[in-house]
């Protein structure tokens, strides 16, 4: 058991006023077998009334609506959690075995899968092996993709960020029929949000980080989970305004007690 405190904040600034702004945040970590949330506060400015629901994947969704014109949206989560790496999660959904919007393979991904296929490995070992093989031909490059990039698109350009590495490995594992899911969260090293995956062993979930090619232990905090990024976005919003650009600053700080 390990006790941690974290602060996660994002600042969204628009270069002109926007209004009728609806938001859906998935930034309050879910209570699970492996992470117990001792306390958690979410602060949003401008101050608005919000509502909380739990979505189909078990994520805490905070929704809100800002009718009046505004030029920024900030939110900050302060949380204390206990992480227990001896426990295992067992919540299962059939969609985790199926291709999704972002993880649908194309011909090139099927070809790559044929080259590296290895049925003798366990699901978790396979995630590691596929990730190692992927890193031989694909490089990590900041800003090389967007939040709309699919596994097939990132694979085609052979570069991407954590989200893309996760999607590609999910896609390859799902070709094998192995249930696996997308995780968005934070790591002890702090900084922006990170993405990794969980692989179903047949009995429980085990975390694996395809970007760093390591097994996930208690240095990771799950904020949201789902079939792919589409289910997990930490913040989604729809607003009205003239053509506006937006700038987002994300930071997190984690301290271990």
């Amino acid at each position, binding site marked *: 058991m390990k006790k941690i405190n974290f602060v996660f904040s994002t600042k969204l600034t628009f270069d002109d006023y926007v209004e009728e702004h609806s938001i859906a945040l998935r930034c309050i970590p879910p209570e699970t077998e492996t992470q117990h949330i001792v306390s958690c506060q979410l602060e949003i400015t401008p101050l608005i*009334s919000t509502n909380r629901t739990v*979505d*189909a994947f078990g994520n805490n969704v905070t929704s809100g609506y800002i009718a009046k014109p505004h030029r920024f949206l900030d939110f900050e989560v302060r949380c204390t959690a206990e992480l227990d790496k001896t426990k295992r999660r067992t919540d299962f959904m059939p969609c985790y075995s199926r291709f999704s919007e972002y993880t649908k393979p194309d011909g090139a991904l099927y070809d790559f899968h044929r080259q590296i296929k290895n049925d003798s490995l366990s699901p978790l070992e396979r995630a590691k092996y596929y990730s190692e093989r992927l890193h031989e031909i694909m490089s990590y490059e900041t800003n090389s993709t967007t939040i709309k990039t699919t596994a097939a698109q990132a694979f085609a350009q052979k570069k991407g960020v954590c989200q893309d590495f996760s999607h590609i490995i999910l896609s390859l594992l799902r070709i094998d029929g192995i249930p696996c899911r997308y995780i968005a969260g934070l790591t002890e090293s702090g900084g922006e949000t990170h993405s990794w995956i969980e692989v179903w062993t047949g009995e429980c979930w085990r975390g694996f980080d395809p970007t760093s090619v390591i097994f996930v232990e208690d240095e990771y905090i799950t904020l949201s989970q789902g079939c792919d990024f589409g*289910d997990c976005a930490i913040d*989604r919003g*729809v607003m009205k305004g003239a053509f506006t650009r937006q700038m987002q600053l994300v930071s997190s700080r984690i301290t271990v007690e």
Partner: protein
Amino acid sequence: MENISFPSANVKEINELLRRYGVKFGIYKNGEFKEQLFPFDTIPRVISADSFSYLEKGLIQRVDALNMFLYDIYHEKKIIADKIIPEEFVYISSGYLPQCEGITPPKKIYSHISGIDLVEGKDGEWYILEDNLRIPSGASYPLIARELTRTASPDCFSQSGIVDNRNYAELLRSAMDSVNCGGINAILTPGRYNAAYFEHSYLAELTGAALVQNNELFVEDNMLFQKTYTGGKTRIGALYRRISDEYLDPLTFNPCSVIGVPNLTEAYRAGNVAVINALGNGVADDKGIYYFVPKMIKYYLNEEPILKNAPTYLPFYEEDRKYVLENLEKLVIKDVAEAGGYGVVFGSDLTAEKLADFRQTIINEPRRFIAQEVIDFKDLPIIENGEQVMRKADLRAFVLSGEKTRVWASGLTRFSRNPDSFVVNSSQGGGFKDTWVLSR
């Protein structure tokens, strides 16, 4: 039946009235929006009281089972655990939405308005062709056509025992009222360039629901509101919508949608608004799931199915695949992902080369298709250029689920204007007839 006198007004006059009333059907062809008239034929389809009572029982049974199936699939999934339906068929379906897992719509009703397409075989037996559980359109056409024919030929309706069909609005309103979570009823339309715009505006007028577009709606405190002209807001408790699920809420589904309402899913999940029909229904009217509906009826209701499916084969099963590959030239093949008469291929229309290609496609993607025997269904008379000719026709029956499940004693009879075609869909240029149910 012989002593019923058909409306004396001629086809041209009534179609002219329909045109003036704006009874139109929108169609997109080659990227262009065109509104076309939906040609009306004055000779009605007549259904005897006995036939209707039989159809009614069968349709209620079918729709009740489909609603139970939807609840089961998004909750316990007992029908899969009990191996009645292979899980592949459920979860591969593009209509299955994992985002809807665990959501319970008010009164557990998913399909409030079901459009069940049937044909009457030459043997007098009715066969179900497909179920439409994502707000089927079309009820407004026989409604307004009846109104106009009644005006043109009032005697016919006062002297013959024809069940009045004006209660559709009442059926729809009570279905909406029974699931309303507090607030007004509203009909959401994407606007006048939508194929069913005429229907949306007509139904709103008849049921007293507000006709709304997405830019006047918002979700606040997990409740759906309509902005009022004075800057206030009116709560909506039941929302009839014909926008596809994936465009309905840009914060849950397709983020690029500009015709949806952000956070509608959250309000719906919280039980603060009924969405009519519910989200995720596509898994139950999937052409691949159709095959299993009679099994659902036995499973959930412990009853024998009253209405028959058309004989159907699933290439997914090896035995069926063998039959389909050997008999392709006499079967009709449907692509499960397509709707509105698209993706329907008659084996008899294909050249030897095309047949061979198609066999390969079926081998490669067996889950994508279903195959059916071509049912030799009854032709109905229509008037064309002043002469009576026979054409293929089907019947879309409307079943409404509220406190109870009820069948509208009318329906949309669609016919093919092409003498060689079995495809009657209005999007493929077909016409329509009124459907008379006799009271005795």
